[in-house]
């Protein structure tokens, strides 16, 4: 209290606030890779692609704007439409089946079964394998001359026919079988963790109230697991849009163009057809699709939290 001024004089560097830019300097330097990635790659590259999707770039990117021409062509290209349709079918089926199978398996395993870890190990191991490996394995299993069809026929059922990969109408389901094989295990594990996180007392209360087990699941447990389902949902959808390797390995888009997917369209247009503009337009549409899925979700998730 006595002499504030004197204190200030002898205080030295403690009295002056450091330059705000230099504050946490190490942290800022350490964050440079993150900042660069966020700005240059995620913002910059995305913006670059979107801008170039309005150009007539062929082999080399150039800023020769042609308006919406690339999009016009995109949406009048059969292969793109087929790709979108496939993605929709694959996406919806994959979403439903993955959730249902994942949850059912988790619920079954949660019934305190013996050898639980053995079952869990078997259900999850495909997730360790790449899509390339998955695609190749199922390409063989679904090969009519070699795989399941052949085996069933050799057992005497001569008319048995199961060749999804050679039938344009159902080839996407052939890919779905492989996709589910690879991905459901993970969802099961997540669901199982969710189920384990539910208070034992809920089960006790349901039993005291005499509610049947299935009803408890439907009316009590599943609503309680909403966050887990949301996680699973985001996970599955973001995986669906990226589907590429599986198709390349399993069918290369065939028969015909029956199993083409958007990611493959982008790749082929960019690198094989040497029509970058078209590839950029297609990838921008993919971005838009993700945004359409993501924005309502983000709104529900984060908008909801703010209100709560």
């Amino acid at each position: 209290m006595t002499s504030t001024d004197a204190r200030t004089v002898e205080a030295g560097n403690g009295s002056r606030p450091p330059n705000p830019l230099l504050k946490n300097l190490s942290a800022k330097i350490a964050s440079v890779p993150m900042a660069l990635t966020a700005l240059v790659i995620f913002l910059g590259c995305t913006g670059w692609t979107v801008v170039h999707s309005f150009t007539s770039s062929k082999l080399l990117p150039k800023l020769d704007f042609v308006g919406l021409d690339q999009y016009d062509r995109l949406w009048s290209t059969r292969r793109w439409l087929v790709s979108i349709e496939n993605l929709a079918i694959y996406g919806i089926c994959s979403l439903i089946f993955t959730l249902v199978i994942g949850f059912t398996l988790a619920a079954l395993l949660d019934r305190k079964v013996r050898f639980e870890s053995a079952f869990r190990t078997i259900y999850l191991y495909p997730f360790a394998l790449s899509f390339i490996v998955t695609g190749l394995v199922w390409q063989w299993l679904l090969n009519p001359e070699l795989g399941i069809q052949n085996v069933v026929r050799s057992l005497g059922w001569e008319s048995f026919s199961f060749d999804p990969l050679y039938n344009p109408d159902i080839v996407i389901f052939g890919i779905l079988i492989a996709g589910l094989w690879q991905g459901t295990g993970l969802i099961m594990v997540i669901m199982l963790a969710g189920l384990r996180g539910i208070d034992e007392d809920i089960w006790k209360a349901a039993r005291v109230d005499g509610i049947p087990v299935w009803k408890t699941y439907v009316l009590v447990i599943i609503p309680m697991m909403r966050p887990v389902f949301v996680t699973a949902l985001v996970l599955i959808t973001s995986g669906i849009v990226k589907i590429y390797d599986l198709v390349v390995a399993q069918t290369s888009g065939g028969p015909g163009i029956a199993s083409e997917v958007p990611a493959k369209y982008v790749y082929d247009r960019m690198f094989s057809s040497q029509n970058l503009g078209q590839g950029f337009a297609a990838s921008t549409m993919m971005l838009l699709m993700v945004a359409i899925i993501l924005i309502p979700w983000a709104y529900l998730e984060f908008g909801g939290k703010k209100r709560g």
Partner: protein
Amino acid sequence: MADVTASTNGNGIPATGLVEGPRGAKPKRTFSRGNIFLYGTLIVVAVYYALPLWVMVVTSLKGMPEIRMGNIFAPPVEITFQPWVKAWAEACTGINCDGLSRGFWNSVRILVPSVVLSIAVASVNGYALSNWKFKGSEVFFTILMLGAFIPYQVMIYPIVILLREMGLYGTLWGLVLVHTIFGMPILTLLFRNYFTSIPMDLFKAARVDGAGFWGIYFRVMVPMALPIFVVAMILQVTGIWNDFLFGVIYTKPEIYPMTVQLNNIVNSVQGVKEYNVNMAATLLTGLVPLTIYFVSGKLFVRGIAAGAVKG
């Protein structure tokens, strides 16, 4: 299904396949209908999951004549390791006939620096984001998280240009950089969440003790975060090993990772398709992640789930 939970015989000793602890007074039969249904379903599903692996293993041990004759599910009559040898050392991509071994070593050479670098960068990010927030850090983080959802296709071409400008295109380090970048969102989230869960007091104590940014990171945070490092490592090893898209775009044939080489070997045919060699090659490619999975089961699940679960 209710029968299943309350399944114990009268004297409280768990019956076969049942739960311990008395759950009800009424004795239950071991093979109740519910139980048969439960285990039946589990086993049928397990067969669906296990079958492809079984087919891969048995086919890879058969000779070609046996494959043409028999059914793919039957165990080999005569076990031969020739397909494995061929897949590893002799299978051809073009006129290079040194099998998958080259791809394997390429993958290892890509994997090690990618894993190290991506984890190093992401853990520092996560640490900075949870303990050293500065103006704008949350903005970067948000962009990073959104970036996780941007389809790769949107960014692959501009990255080709960037790598070219840096002189890294087609090199191993270019691919390492790409893996580091695309692994960043999830890993950063993983580390940020972990470091946030560490009591803030610990960080404050270290600051009072005079440790700076790096001092706290290396001497306090890293030793405490070892479990999450292992989780991140599993996540990255599997992810990078299984990558195909980046491998095919950002490298050249000499340094193709194993997955790309596998696809080339299997899908480029000279004469007859040698299914046994292809299966052996496929198994070889899956061996690293499978080994990690079977060896570190619980941690693997944690790693994958951690990569999956958002903040």
